[in-house]
């Protein structure tokens, strides 16, 4: 159900943009209004969601300790997987965000007769995710050439590195390959691994299909239909300088591409894509394991009924005296 629904949703979006531009002349809507609306939604949405998270306090210090604690000086502690200092936490978070440390631990259950249980090597998810995110980042940064004049040196530098393999004309970007390969892998594993398929919702297929289609339309524009980059840059520069223009002669495919990107941005704050900002706030990762050293304060720590020693002694006094246990009141 999820797959079909997501497929239909993405196809509908493609068709709407295509038909809107081709038959109704809605270039202005798909090229200007939608991107602006999407960016507005993206920024307000993300900020609102993050503020919502931040509004809820962190009452307890609950890092997942994945390494030796800091205790006795002669025992080597694991400052990254079980940090006790701020610097350690920054290190741990950097590993999580830049290298997906936790995902790297992944293994695959092999249940064999006997029973013999094995936990086998499984880094494909880690690899594909890392590849996906970094190629996404590279593609994103390369796109800055449409939004800057002059084009910053690092964008040009990145393009050079990214086109190391001079295959055909225009040059083939490695990031494009990696991006499509990684998204395809993430999608395929979702439908062929029975457990992953079982947990998947429409909201898991939709972004992957959307992102795949964004990539595909981009690649087709670049390598197949060879769009007029000069006109497109006029449009994109118009957007960032807040003097929107719609130059003549831009094909429908471009508007489809931009519309899908707009949908992705607009959808972002309301979806699981919020894992990106969310990971920074994760209490099991972003706190030092130092709650035996310094007191962590819970803002809503309210008093609770307890059974006091006095009540206890009142209850058991005779028995305690008889057993020779000391009491407060004879």
């Amino acid at each position, binding site marked *: 159900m999820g797959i079909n629904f997501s497929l239909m949703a993405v196809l509908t979006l493609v068709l709407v943009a295509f038909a809107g531009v081709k038959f109704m002349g809605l270039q202005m809507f798909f090229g200007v209004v939608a991107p602006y609306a999407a960016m507005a939604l993206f920024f307000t949405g993300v900020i609102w969601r993050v503020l919502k*998270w*931040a509004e809820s*306090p*962190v009452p*307890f*210090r*609950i890092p*997942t*300790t994945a*390494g*030796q*604690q800091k*205790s*006795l000086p002669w*025992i*080597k*502690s694991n400052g990254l997987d079980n940090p*006790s200092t701020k610097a350690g936490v920054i290190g741990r978070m950097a590993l*999580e965000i830049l290298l997906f440390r*936790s*995902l790297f*631990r*992944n*293994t*695959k259950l092999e*249940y064999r007769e006997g*029973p013999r*249980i094995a*936990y086998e090597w499984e880094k494909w998810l880690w690899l594909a*995710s890392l590849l996906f995110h970094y190629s996404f980042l590279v593609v994103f940064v390369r796109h800055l050439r449409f939004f800057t004049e002059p084009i910053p040196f690092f964008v040009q530098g990145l393009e050079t590195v990214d086109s190391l393999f001079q295959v055909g004309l225009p040059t083939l970007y490695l990031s494009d390959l990696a991006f499509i390969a990684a998204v395809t892998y993430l999608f395929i594993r979702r439908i062929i691994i*029975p457990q992953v398929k079982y*947990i*998947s*919702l429409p*909201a898991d297929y939709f972004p992957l299909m959307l992102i795949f289609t964004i990539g595909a339309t981009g690649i087709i524009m670049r390598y197949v239909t060879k769009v007029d980059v000069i006109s497109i840059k006029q449009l994109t520069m118009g957007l960032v300088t807040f003097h929107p223009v719609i130059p003549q002669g831009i094909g429908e495919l471009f508007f489809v591409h931009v519309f899908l990107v707009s949908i992705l941005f607009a959808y972002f704050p309301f979806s*699981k894509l919020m*894992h990106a900002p*969310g*990971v920074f706030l*994760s*209490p*099991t990762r972003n706190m030092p*394991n130092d*709650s*035996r*050293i310094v*007191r962590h304060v819970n803002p809503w*720590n309210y008093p*609770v*009924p*307890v059974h006091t*020693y006095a009540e*206890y002694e009142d209850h*058991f006094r005779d*028995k*305690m005296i008889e*057993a*020779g*246990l*000391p009491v407060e009141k004879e």
Partner: protein
Amino acid sequence: MAKIPKASEMAATLSHIPPQTGWMDTPTEFKQGRWCYGAKAKNMEVLGLPNPRDWSPTDADWKLPSNWKEIILEGLRERIGRFRSLRLFMDICVRCGACADKCHFFIGSGDPKNMPVLRAELLRSVYRKEFTTAGKILGKLAGGRELTEEVFKEWFYYFFQCTECRRCSVFCPYGIDTAEITIIARELLNLVGCNIDWIAGPVANCYQNGNHLGIQPHAFKDMIEFFVDEIEALNGIRIEPTFNRKGAEILFITPSGDVFADPGTYTLMGYLMLFHEIGLDYTWSTYASEGGNFGFFTSHEMMKRLNAKMYAEAKRLGVKWILGGECGHMWRVVNQYMDTMNGPADFLEEPVSPITGTKFDSAKGTKMLHLVEFTADLIRNGKLKLDPSRNDHLNVTFHDSCNPARGMGLFEEPRYVIQNVCNNFHEMPPNTIREQTFCCGSGSGLNTDEFLDMRMRGGLPRANAVKHVHDMFGVNTLSTICAIDRAVLPPLMDYWVPGVGVAGVHEMVGNALVMEGETERTTDMRGEPLAGMEDSEDEDI
């Protein structure tokens, strides 16, 4: 005891392939041996918990209050506002499935709702439906689900099939901790009186009598004195422990399970022998006679109510600091909650070992030290005379208990101690120890007989790793620093790996400890002949 299949049968019928129907459309069936009895009215009344009544999870009518749904949703709203963890974990899961095959209950049962991600989705689906715009409008399409009585019962079933072990959270790219979700879901269940009795009973006992087992003060003293006699019979040394003694330097607290049943009692004998030998100025308390905290498996509030006794008693007795025995979840509570809930403990002093002079900076806030840390420091400083050959009849491996592992990071200290008191030690495979350790399958208050089927399933990954070292190196002893482990691992071993016994680390310390003026030992504390003493044993007879 629930009737359960033979081990070979259980193993052979286990499959990890999910059913054809989607999980939202697969009704939950309460299977024999996989659910626990409902909390009894009398226990809930002791604690003043809502909706006290006698009920059974297999009843059609759970006797919920008529406005149960509002209570639950209001409770959920309140907790979303109180716990960033909950709010975040409800929002950011990408369902990548990295956690799916990491849960011992999924590995042992194959039930897809035991995949941590689906366990969380049971609650998340309701959250989406009630608290997100997309869920309100799109319903099922957005992964939303109405909170019905069936859904509520499903929560009960699966949130009492999670041992809050945090293994899943080690693997999640965002650190989503299904244990945290289970903890909060159980709080919600408790709002309308749906706890299990195996938790509510100990909590009520602990609240009133000072410990989970309901041992009254005079009986507590008697029981410990019984072990004093046992030790005297073993090596001729008479130990004189004190109770509720004001002015002692240290208050010692350990789970009451150690007082009650073997093999925990041997660990307790180890404590007594060690403290005697080093001349520690310490006292037991009958009021704070419980290290464990089943309140933690009920709600944050109940955890605080029970935990409060530790500091209160330390203050009353005027001790300098607290020493804590071998227990699992007790140490998660002490490390991650105690000072926040019931501190600051400014009436105590930073722990300093009176024997070695070591200052334990790492516990300077809570003022509570783990006994294994304390013992490791003693050994390191050469303060103990040890004869590890007295443990030569044991071939040992070490089970990292979930809580000291993933809620503290206590890995090296017990290994250091073990390797100084025994000569034969072998680690289980790396994917099954330390931060990746597997639960015993009976933690978080699920160590009850009616739950035996699920306990054996949940314990399978642990047992399988033990079997590996048993077959390979002849390991015959599974050592551990947790009282629940000591109670539940023996039946688990009997079921999956017969021939392996279970021992606390301080039992082995007690065996190896050469005590001043002791008579020659021919057996260990259990009366088993020491290696090389099998013959002298016969001569005696």
